[in-house]
């Protein structure tokens, strides 16, 4: 076989592969897996610390939703920005934050991303473009539109991704934000992580349309539904929407159908869903297992290599927790720091 024929054959083979395998280098593909593990182990580590009384307050874990956070962030560059939610640890990591400083924040330490003032619900890393989680459902939606307005006015070329949950789509802020993004053709991508429930309330009981993406039509923007547990599908939808936004063609609404394994927060009796439903998602649709299976099937990594990734992630988590424990507590004198930028 001539060199050219070989190349052509490889091309046809790869052209049948899902999007990310055509779009990204091996290294990027493995980095995406690494970050998905990092998200899951981070959540598990945070949960363990919470159980042992090392972290107080409450937290909302995104275990099961890793492909959505990672797939959306794959086409983004560091300068692109996101707004996140109360279930925001995964977004923060996928956008490039350091888990050391995230743990430190959860421990309330000065080395945390918010100097111990924000905790889980306000986790942010502005240096990697994360404008912050949010304690208010729907709170980030108009803020993302504002960030996109800045990008457009100042011609920064940035795209803004706005993560929100299915529950947020019934807040007025959702509708007002989508409308303004559309009339002003702003470079923003709305990403609904539809995990089926807002706390205990299923979308069937809370939402008049079958899909949140159906609402895009009311604001004259594309509405795209993807399997949020398939990394490549999410990344492809994100890629298209981000390109469209960068071209100046305006916003897109992507709906990632996914599932959260844990309860809503630390006080959930799980009375609104069945164990069978949870088990089905965990065993048959797990985003990490599915991605790993593809990486092996397509010959991109061996199971030993995957094992090595998991081990290195575990080390990073352990080191992050140690860093958090060893970091200093804020002094009471600083209680009023940063209420204002300048002394009031």
């Amino acid at each position, binding site marked *: 076989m001539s060199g050219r024929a070989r190349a052509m054959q490889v091309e046809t083979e790869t052209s049948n592969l899902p999007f990310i395998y055509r779009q990204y280098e091996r290294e990027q593909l493995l980095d995406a897996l690494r970050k998905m593990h990092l998200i899951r182990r981070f959540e598990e580590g945070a949960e363990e610390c919470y159980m042992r009384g090392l972290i*107080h*307050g*409450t937290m909302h874990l995104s275990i099961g939703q890793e492909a959505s956070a990672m797939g959306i962030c794959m086409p983004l560059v560091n300068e692109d920005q996101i707004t996140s939610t109360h279930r925001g640890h995964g977004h923060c990591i996928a956008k490039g934050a350091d888990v050391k400083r995230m743990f430190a*924040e959860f421990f*309330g330490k000065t080395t945390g991303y*918010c100097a*111990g*003032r*924000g*905790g889980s*619900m*306000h986790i942010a890393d502005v240096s990697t473009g994360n404008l912050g989680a*949010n*304690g*208010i*459902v*729907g*709170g980030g939606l108009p803020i993302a539109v504002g960030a996109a307005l800045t990008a457009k006015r100042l011609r920064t070329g940035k795209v803004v991704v706005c993560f929100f949950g299915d*529950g*947020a789509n*019934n*807040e*007025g802020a959702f509708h007002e934000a989508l409308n303004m993004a559309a009339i002003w053709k702003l470079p923003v991508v709305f990403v609904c992580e539809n995990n089926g429930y*807002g*706390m*205990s*309330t299923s979308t069937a*009981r*809370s*939402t008049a349309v079958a899909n949140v993406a159906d609402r895009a039509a009311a604001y004259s923007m594309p509405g795209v539904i993807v399997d949020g547990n398939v990394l490549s599908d999410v990344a492809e939808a994100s890629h298209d929407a981000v390109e469209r936004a960068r071209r100046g063609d305006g916003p897109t609404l992507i709906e990632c159908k996914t599932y959260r394994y844990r309860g809503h927060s630390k*006080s*959930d*009796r799980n*009375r*609104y869903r069945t164990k069978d439903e949870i088990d089905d998602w965990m065993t048959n649709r797990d985003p990490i297992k599915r991605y790993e299976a593809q990486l092996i099937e397509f010959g991109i990594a061996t199971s030993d290599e995957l094992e090595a990734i998991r081990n290195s992630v575990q080390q990073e988590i352990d080191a992050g927790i140690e860093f958090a424990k060893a970091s200093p*507590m*804020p002094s*009471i004198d*600083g*209680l*009023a720091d940063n*209420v204002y930028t300048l002394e009031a």
Partner: protein
Amino acid sequence: MNAPVREISYSQAIQEAMAIAMESDERVILMGEDIGVYGGAFQVTGDLIDRFGPDRVMDTPISELGGAGVAVGAAVTGLRPIFEFQFSDFAALAMEQIVNQAAKMRYMLGGAVSVPLVMRFPAGSGTGAAAQHSQSLEAWLGHVPGLKVIQPATPHDVKGMLLAAVADPDPVMIFEHKLLYKMKGPVPEGHYTVPLNKAEVRREGHDVSIVATSIMVHKALEAAEVLAGEGVSAEVIDLRSIRPIDQETVIASVKKTSRLICVYEGVKTLGVGAEISAMIAESEAFDYLDAPILRLGGSETPIPYNPELEKAAVPQVPEIVDAARGLVRGVR
């Protein structure tokens, strides 16, 4: 005639009051986020859905503005909704309907309608939930004529005041400190009411009056106990309602003790303490004062996440003790 009294928690007392109201009046419905099978974020509605069904224990979508407005519309036209905010902080999303509609509708229509609406707001800090889930915003609503704003501090009062609120023809806003939910206290069985406009003297004393709201009543009582050991006799007044304020009880107490400290968790500036201080300054009690009036309120900051900072952001027992001792001994 006296109903048996048991020890139950503050949240059980609320649940009991809601059940009694629903049993005796078909028009009473509960509305809120996750108050059905979830039982409410703080398990206050608990299993009421099993007793009254989803048509009367209604889960709303996450739509505070719309939900509050639906409750207003229902109240004006013949239902008696008890609307639960998951956290008082989310009142910010519903201010339009509370402030511009519910509070003023009767007045604007020249008395043609009433708005018999009850809204419940889990409030306050101390749970590590940080700046958007820990505020004490009662003074915001206290500023609005047309609303009644109460802060029951005990299981007994919250049950009786909630039942009074449901029977009241005007909108009543109930601020419930989250740290009180598990607190137990004696509560009579069955129906009874506690007036919405009366403060209560929780402990008598003659050296200094401590006027407190909500959880601060308990901190003030603790402080009074410490002060008693030092020979300082503090009178503790549980204000119970901030709109209206029971001027008579506060003025009488200050005339007796000649000293006043206001203790409340909301931000100190422009808060409940400012109102009480001004009220005393304008009253005949002013001439009785032997010392300046003191306010102990929340710090001029959002509520921080770190637990030590969080504690430092609201008045604690030692500060109340120090303030009272200083006032009585003339050192401040």
